[in-house]
């Protein structure tokens, strides 16, 4: 079966090519090394990732790696680190009432490896979850990542995504704020260069009262990169006093980049606040001039400005070793930028 991923909930003009990711996918099931059978908690059954139900079902049916974690305690030990290079992976995390957990997912594909990964996070009442999605892959790999999040009352979820790897990278995060006062923030730092394709589809659906979500991205595009960012905050009827913010701040280094942004605000409830703000600019000439006037060579000045843009996102990674690894990967990518 062929299918599309990263479909937005309300389509717009087809010629803009933002209604879904441009590629159509079809898995060769003969090559699939899927597990014969497995079971996960039924709380994950009806969860939907930002990549879409077809992708989710594909991964569920063909997963070769399954990881499921249940966390019932508030403990600093509930930190799970996974690293993947290729294959079809399903990872589930259920965090029970009042518990805390941290899931670090490092994607480190090389060469022409392909990884499809479905991550499902269910946060029960008062649960606290930190999810780090770190794509540090080489520039020849293909990655598709779907994330489904569901939050009960007062659950608090923080997602940090570092999207600086892969030749073709598709990400879709979908959060469902079911419980009152639940929260989910998604913060992304992305970088795409050369002929890389970066396609993101992040959305939050607000059901509970006084729910909050902020989806924001800081990005750098260079070479002939083709980037699509879709952000959606969807206020369902009854989510009174919900607040949803979206934002993107992009710097383009090349005139051959394609930079598509689609920030949707869908609103079926009057007592809400939905906001979006986006900017696309070049590197700040005044800042470059200032740094050069202080003796910093132009290339270094540019790099300094770019690193400073990304650092608030990188600094959200609590684990120092992982943070250093991210900074090293980012440094390597900046060194190799086609235009700087």
């Amino acid at each position, binding site marked *: 079966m062929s299918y599309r991923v990263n479909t937005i909930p309300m389509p717009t003009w087809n010629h*803009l090519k933002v209604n879904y990711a441009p590629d159509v996918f079809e898995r060769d099931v003969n090559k699939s090394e899927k597990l014969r059978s497995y079971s996960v908690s039924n709380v994950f059954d009806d969860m939907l990732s930002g990549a879409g139900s077809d992708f989710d079902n594909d991964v569920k049916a063909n997963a070769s790696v399954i990881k499921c974690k249940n966390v019932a305690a508030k403990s600093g030990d509930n930190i799970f680190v996974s690293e993947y290079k290729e294959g079809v992976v399903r990872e589930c995390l259920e965090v029970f009432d009042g518990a805390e957990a941290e899931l670090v997912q490092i994607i480190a594909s090389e060469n022409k490896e392909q990884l499809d990964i479905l991550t499902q996070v269910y946060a029960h009442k008062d649960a606290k979850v930190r999810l780090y999605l770190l794509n540090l892959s080489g520039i020849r790999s293909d990655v598709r990542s779907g994330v489904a999040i569901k939050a009960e009352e007062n659950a608090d979820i923080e997602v940090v995504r570092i999207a600086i790897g892969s030749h073709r990278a598709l990400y879709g995060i979908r959060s469902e704020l079911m419980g009152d006062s639940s929260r989910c923030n998604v913060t992304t730092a992305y970088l795409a260069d050369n002929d890389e394709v970066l396609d993101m589809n992040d959305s939050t659906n607000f059901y509970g009262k006084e729910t909050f979500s902020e989806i924001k991205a800081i990005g750098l595009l260079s070479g002939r990169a083709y980037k699509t960012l879709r952000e959606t905050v969807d206020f369902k009827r009854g989510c009174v006093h919900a607040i949803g913010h979206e934002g993107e701040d992009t710097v383009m280094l090349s005139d051959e980049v394609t930079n598509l942004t689609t920030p949707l605000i869908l609103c079926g409830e009057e007592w809400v606040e939905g906001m979006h703000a986006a900017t696309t600019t070049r590197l700040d000439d005044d800042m470059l001039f200032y740094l050069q006037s202080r003796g910093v060579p132009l290339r270094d000045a540019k790099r300094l400005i770019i690193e400073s843009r990304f650092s608030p996102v990188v600094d959200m990674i609590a684990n120092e070793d992982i943070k250093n690894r991210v900074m090293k990967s980012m440094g390597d990518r900046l060194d190799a930028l086609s235009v700087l």
Partner: protein
Amino acid sequence: MFEVEEKTRVDAIDRTLYDFKDKLDPAMIVNSGLTEKVVRQISLEKEDLEWMTEFRLEALKTYNSLDIPTWGPPIDGLDMDNIITYVRPKGEMSAKWEDVPEDIKNTFEKLGIPQSERLSLAGVGAQYDSEIVYHNVRKEVEAQGVIYTDIESALKGDMADVVRSHFMKLIPPTDHKFAALHGAVWSGGSFVYVPKGVSVEIPLQSYFRLNAPGAGQFEHTLIIVEDDAYLHFIEGCSAPKYNIANLHAGCVEIFIGKNSRVRYSTIENWSKNMYNLNSKRALVEEGGIIEWVSGSFGSHTSYLYPMSILKGDNSRMEYTGITFAGEGQELDTGAKVIHMGRNTSSHITTKSISRDGGKSNFRSEVKITREAENSKSAVTCESLMLDDQSRSDTIPVSDIRNSKVDIGHEAKIGRISEDSIFYLMSRGLSEDDAKALIVGGFAEPIAKELPVEYAVEMNNLINLEMKGSIG
């Protein structure tokens, strides 16, 4: 903790100002449905030149080959088999109101068109169903070389070659299904030509009235403004409400010369059984400016996104729009802009209000091409929800392909601030008056872009809508 106010709700009042109906008494009417026979009949009736007949038939083929849009509000209630595409009213086009048939003249008098012409317009075109029934332009404006006439006359007059070389070139029938429909069955509309260096200080206005139940109106407006010129064109439209679907698929094409400026203002107040699938587009040369001012109040369903192509360096576009969607309405409005020239700029400002189950969608496209360096674009979209039965969605897209740009987009959705209501009530206003005042203030940036009498009309429309739903 989550206090929800009690609301008073009043039935929507009659829109009698626009809702009166004339007895259907046409000189000629085609059968409903869209067939080659109907298209040929329209062409014959209008005494088309041969190329136009061929153009219509080719557009019909295009229409039949294209799909219904998959991305917009539902238009299932629109069945082309039931739409009458041409209704010729009695009488010939005249430059004198007294020559217009009595019942049609009465219609336009009720709508205040002759009075507006006397007070504040340089010229008026009035279309009733499928044909222009009145067209006149002030002598002093005519003396400047300005041509303002019905488009059928222009297609056969001194400017025939110019009209032919521009007709449906900006919006070709292949653009989308309803542009193709327009190409096949268009009738009526205006042609405006402003020579180089001429500034038309007083606005021109075309008013479109659709009276026949189950009919479509497909007027074509073609405006050519040469270099260093200025024009303000106003478009108004209304129809009585029927229980069956009516259709409006007009087309507006504007060509703006170097360093010229055109302001195109629309107050759209179609009846709430109308499918308003209209297309508007402007091509702007170097240093030129297009300003769209748009108020959308009527229609059952609207697809309306004026598009600006900033072809010349230093050209500019401004779009200022307000949409008010009430019960049973889904108004999908917005704007498109393509930056092609260097140092071009666009500014889109929209406000929308949804109440009583109405759906208001803002949709936009900002495209910066590879050549359009040093371009700037700002999109600001604010939506006000007056109850939880309504919807307000924003679907903006930016497609940026040049690094030397400054692009900003802001969108905000919310309800009337409780603090603002409290403050106004503490100053002696009733709650209803406070809310009406806040909504009026919300729309004020749009109203101030309109000529005074149209701003008054817009404010009256808002008050009319607000009286139907004190929320």
